[in-house]
């Protein structure tokens, strides 16, 4: 029983990162009906930005001046903003030219962008092909409770994710910009006729999505203590899978999809003998089965096709 509970915590943790990535996919799909395939790479880029900021802080001696609990949140926020701006930049350069083109073009262009981002990261770090050590920015303590081992950092990750999702919902539901995002996701043209500035709204969407993705990247790095330039490919595919399982375009779906994917992977690794190398296979098989029986995801609307 404790074993199951322990694995449940791991699954939740994995689900959190997938959810954060999947929210980005859903936001972009909602706003522009595009899949930003390099989103996973942008997320890992967030982790690398944090790494740079950390080294910079160390170099400038900021750690001596500022206490850790001030500098690290500051660093994460800075990384979120920087990655968000990068996301906006990528949208302008790679996605915007294809706004009225067949959707395949965007797909391929963003896949190519993913290659560019990955390679740029690999080349700009010394020994970039090897995993980079990520600083231990979260406290490393752990405690036992009812036979279950809790790592403090996993609780913090869980808390951060919940907080961010909550803030995002507040933003989407309560602010004017959030209303604009909801409006363009319902009907872009009608929204523009109502005086909504499409470009700024899309930029805001990409800012939020990429910033949340950056947090996912940072949390992955902080939990595993390493990051690799090519983690973004798998992260992106998993995040996309989570978004699709939950229902593409539906932000609530991202949470459900992320948790399902996290559960499948964790339990496949834990309870299927010899299953550890095959966790991704199980995850993808589940995704394919979901797509066969619920092609528009769990919360996705049923789309009726018209000629």
């Amino acid at each position, binding site marked *: 029983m404790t074993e199951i509970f322990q694995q449940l915590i791991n699954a939740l943790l994995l689900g959190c990162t997938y959810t954060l990535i999947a929210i980005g996919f859903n936001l972009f799909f909602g706003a522009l009906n595009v899949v930003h395939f390099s989103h996973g790479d942008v997320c890992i880029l967030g982790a690398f930005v944090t790494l740079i900021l950390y080294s910079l802080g160390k170099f400038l001696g900021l750690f001596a001046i500022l206490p850790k609990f001030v500098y690290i949140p500051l660093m994460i926020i800075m990384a979120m903003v920087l990655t968000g701006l990068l996301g906006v930049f990528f949208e302008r350069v*790679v996605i915007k*030219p294809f706004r009225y083109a067949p959707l395949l073009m965007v797909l391929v262009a963003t896949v190519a962008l993913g290659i560019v981002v990955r390679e740029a990261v690999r080349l700009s770090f010394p020994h970039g092909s090897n995993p980079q050590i990520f600083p231990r920015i979260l406290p490393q303590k752990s405690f036992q409770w009812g036979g279950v081992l809790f790592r403090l950092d996993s609780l913090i990750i869980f808390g951060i994710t919940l907080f961010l999702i909550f803030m995002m919902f507040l933003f989407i539901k309560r602010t004017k910009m959030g209303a604009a995002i909801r409006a363009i996701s319902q009907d872009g043209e009608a929204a523009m006729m109502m005086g909504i500035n499409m470009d700024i709204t899309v930029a805001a969407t990409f800012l939020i999505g990429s910033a949340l993705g950056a947090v996912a990247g940072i949390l992955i790095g902080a939990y595993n203590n390493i990051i690799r330039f090519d983690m973004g490919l798998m992260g992106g595919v998993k995040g996309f899978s989570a978004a699709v399982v939950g229902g593409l375009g539906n932000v609530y779906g991202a949470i459900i999809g992320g948790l399902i994917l996290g559960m499948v992977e964790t339990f496949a690794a834990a309870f299927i003998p010899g299953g550890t190398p095959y966790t991704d296979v199980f995850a993808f098989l589940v995704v394919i089965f979901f*797509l066969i029986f619920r092609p528009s995801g769990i919360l996705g609307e049923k789309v009726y096709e018209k000629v």
Partner: protein
Amino acid sequence: MFQGKSVGRALLLVGVEVIFFVLFVAFMLAHQLGKTMAFIIFFISLGILFKKWRGLNHAVVELFTEMKILAVVVFIVMVLTLPFMFQKSPYLIHICVMAGLYAILALGLNFQLGSTNVVNFATAASYGIGAYTSALLAVHFQVSFWIGIFISGGVASLFGLLLGIPCMKTKDYYLSLVTIAFGLIVYILLINFSWTGGPNGIPNIPPPSFLGHSFREPLNLFGFNLPFQSNYFYLIFVLVGGALFVAYRLHHSRVGLTWNAIREDEIAARCHGIDVTWYKILAFCIDAFFGGVTGTVYAHYIGFISPENFAFIVSVVVVTMVILGGMDNVFGVIIGAVILTILPEKFRAFEDFRLLVYGVIVVTMLVFRPQGLFPQKLRIYQR
């Protein structure tokens, strides 16, 4: 009078083709980066000139359509002489062989992506399945290359059928996710199974032999001693020719027309009594067959395969070849494959930046010419 004029035009056509061929050979032989860049800029400006100057464009197109057979024959003869041009540098012949392999993959994918508008990111999977099938058969059971090529094509087709079933339910992005997931599943399984050699792959795959002549020995032709890659060059030339023939015939048949109908509007096609499921599955199977055949040739040519050769990036490369060359244009697809194979190899000087340059090229080309280099042509049935 008339006779003299048409001879003159024929000479003009041959001259144009020979000039392009010489330029191509010179480009391939250019070693320094500066020269390569100069050639690339020259080709791009030539393309722009060709596009802007309507008169020249029309004249050349008219010339080539007028004497189609002559143009094709001259082209074939020139391609056949390539190994003689490159006999000092086997590496260039190797690039040509790889270009041919990718051309077949791209032609196969074109049935889906170009004709039917079914996104498929699992080309690497069928390519890998074909390569592993024939390699395992050859290493463990001494099955000949010439039999293995059909077996692996069939096995790859079976997997294509398997992939096609979930794909019938899904469209667009969902479909692309299914194919990406399938490709990754195959890749992960290849790494983790012990009977496929795991991450180490399969070494020592025997080369094929033809009439007692092993393909790993130098080829003697007309007193010239050509490097062993030339064997594969001629093999792949025949295969590309076959693939081209199949693709061309399919495109101009009922099947190609049906695929186009599905691309334009699936529901309308269904309303006209087209069995959409069957034709989509057919596209999947033919693509997988092409992939399997290509994989077989690759495995026996290189002699060593590992899962890395069939990673996700290979599928992306093939998809970009189809899009870049021009969807549903058989010749455009081949040119896209050749360009995207040769260009990265030319940038081998900075090995590390290869993929980066590749990605930048693809993004810029998509932004500036989203319809591809050679967009599809309207079907003309009667003049």
